């Protein structure tokens, strides 16, 4: 069909007959090249999962499920359990979320709904730039600026007035779970706030105006149209931030104090799954220690995989449901009437 319509093709068809065979060779090559590239990524992913599992198998087979229940991590006694590392990871991440979520949602609301354009653009750029700061720089800043600051002011204050709470007891040095949590919070704010802004953008302008039209103040409008409407997406954004916090390594390693133990006080040093890998992998001297470290890596990999999938599903569902609300999709075919046949036609063509 195309051959008949395209005069250039007809021309070349008569001129060089032998070229006809190869006219789509580049297309085919390009297609298979790109296909191979995409598949190699998928292959790489599963290969990585497999290799890490294989390397950590000695530890899993040696300790069994005990690996996740044992809180002791001692290379002298060859007793390795991930519980204290999981604890350190979970506590710092939760602390980070508690601090980061209100700030991020607030920043996102301000930038997308309230700030005038001339302020919103540079400000959102700066927030995004927070994500571009290398992890190690955060770590250095945390160690030399944030930790002393926490020790001299915040922790001193908490220890003095809130020492009846188990979270704020014992000696404080600055470095520890609290410092790790604060650093993580700063690091995940750009992630959460940028996803939140994206989610807020999916809410149609007319929804906002409808609430305003009912005589709502600006805050009531934000509450009803924006926050309520995007709650699924906000949860997705939070989980995305959590995924980042769980895997964050360098900055946390530098400020957490590196002591694999389970203590309730946030002043205490701890160890996360990622930080113990950074600390000990180079020095692990026997197979069981190495395998146990890899097993921690595998656990972390698996955990962040699940968390990220969950986050993507939530954000995706949110985007789909908000864009599907308006009747256009559902009713376009009904209101068009005669052009319904046009839709059938495109549907058919796809099948062929």
């Amino acid at each position, binding site marked *: 069909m195309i051959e008949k319509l395209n005069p250039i093709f007809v021309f070349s068809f008569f001129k060089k007959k032998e070229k006809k065979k190869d006219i789509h060779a580049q297309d085919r090559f390009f297609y298979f090249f790109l296909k191979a590239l995409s598949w190699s990524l998928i292959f790489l992913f599963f290969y990585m999962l497999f290799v890490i599992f294989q390397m950590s198998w000695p530890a899993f087979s040696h300790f069994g499920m005990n690996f996740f229940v044992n809180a002791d991590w001692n290379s002298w006694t060859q007793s390795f359990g991930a519980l204290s590392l999981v604890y350190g990871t979970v506590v710092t991440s939760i602390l980070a979320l508690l601090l980061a979520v209100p700030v991020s949602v607030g920043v996102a609301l301000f930038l997308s709904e309230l700030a005038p354009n001339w302020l919103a653009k540079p400000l959102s750029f700066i927030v995004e730039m927070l994500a571009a700061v290398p992890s190690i720089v955060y770590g250095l800043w945390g160690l030399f600026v944030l930790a002393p600051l926490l020790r001299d002011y915040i922790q001193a204050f908490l220890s003095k007035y809130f020492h009846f709470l188990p979270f704020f007891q014992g000696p404080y040095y600055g470095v520890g779970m609290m410092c790790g949590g604060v650093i993580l919070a700063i690091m995940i704010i750009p992630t959460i706030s940028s996803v939140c802004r994206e989610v807020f953008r999916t809410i149609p302008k007319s929804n906002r*105006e409808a609430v*305003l*039209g*009912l*005589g*709502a103040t600006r805050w009531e409008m934000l509450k009803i149209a924006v926050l309520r409407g995007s709650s699924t997406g906000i949860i997705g954004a939070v989980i995305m931030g959590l995924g980042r916090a769980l895997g964050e390594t360098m900055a946390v390693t530098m400020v957490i104090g590196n002591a694999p133990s389970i203590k309730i006080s946030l002043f205490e040093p701890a160890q996360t799954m990622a930080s113990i890998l950074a600390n000990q992998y180079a020095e692990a001297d026997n197979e069981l220690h190495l395998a146990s470290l890899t097993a921690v890596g595998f656990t972390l990999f698996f955990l962040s995989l699940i968390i990220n999938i969950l986050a993507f599903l939530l954000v995706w569902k949110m985007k789909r449901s908000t864009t599907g609300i308006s009747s256009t999709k*559902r*009713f376009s075919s009904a209101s068009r009437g005669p052009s319904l046949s046009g839709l059938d036609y495109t549907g058919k063509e796809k099948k062929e």
Partner: protein
Amino acid sequence: MKETKTLVKIQDLSASFFSIPVLKNIDLEIPIHKVVALIGPSGCGKSTFLRCLNRMHEEVSGAGIQGQVFLEGQNIYAPYIDPVLVRRKVGMVFQKPNPFPGLSIFDNVAVGLKLMGVKRKVLFERVENSLKQAALWDEVKDILKRQGTSLSGGQQQRLCIARTLAINPSVVLMDEPTSALDPISTARIEGLIRELKEKVTVIIVTHNMQQASRVSDKTAFLLSGELIEYGKTSQIFTNPSKGKTESYITGRFG
């Protein structure tokens, strides 16, 4: 025929976006308990005009406005007037049905009442009344807890009308309320509009000439931001006094 009272009086109203004029010196009087249709080609300023009447125009960045709009004798652009209170008197229905996501059918209607601080005891009654006024009650009375967004497009639009009626506005602005709906839903909404004028004054923007002639008592024709002609609908559609009006309604341009 008895003399009808003027509810909204627009005086010398001009509006602009980023100092590009959209409306030029509009003067218009809207009688109480009537349906007034605004017609005109796309981009002639109909929607902007509508949005000037409940102070929604100023919500968009770059918006400028001059002139006065008197609602029940009160200039809504007077400096001491709170736009939030204006919008409680002047409701608005949008082009696409937009029930609030995440809210049930009941809450969609109740939300405006809650904002006004209506007591819980009378809340249900008020919601029921508004849904009845919007001719939706019989269809949704058993599924009030279901999401508002689960209704069909036509039902969603009637839900939006119910939500607007719930706070007892004196004027309801409708911006092409049926352009996203199928013919049957459109007919229902048109019937509803004719019933509504017993209680409220309706100003409706439409691209559909037949709709304007079916539902409205008076029609205003706007062209590039200027009011060309305003008069009884029957007269505008059968015997327009201006040549531009005639060529528009007969389909010669626009």
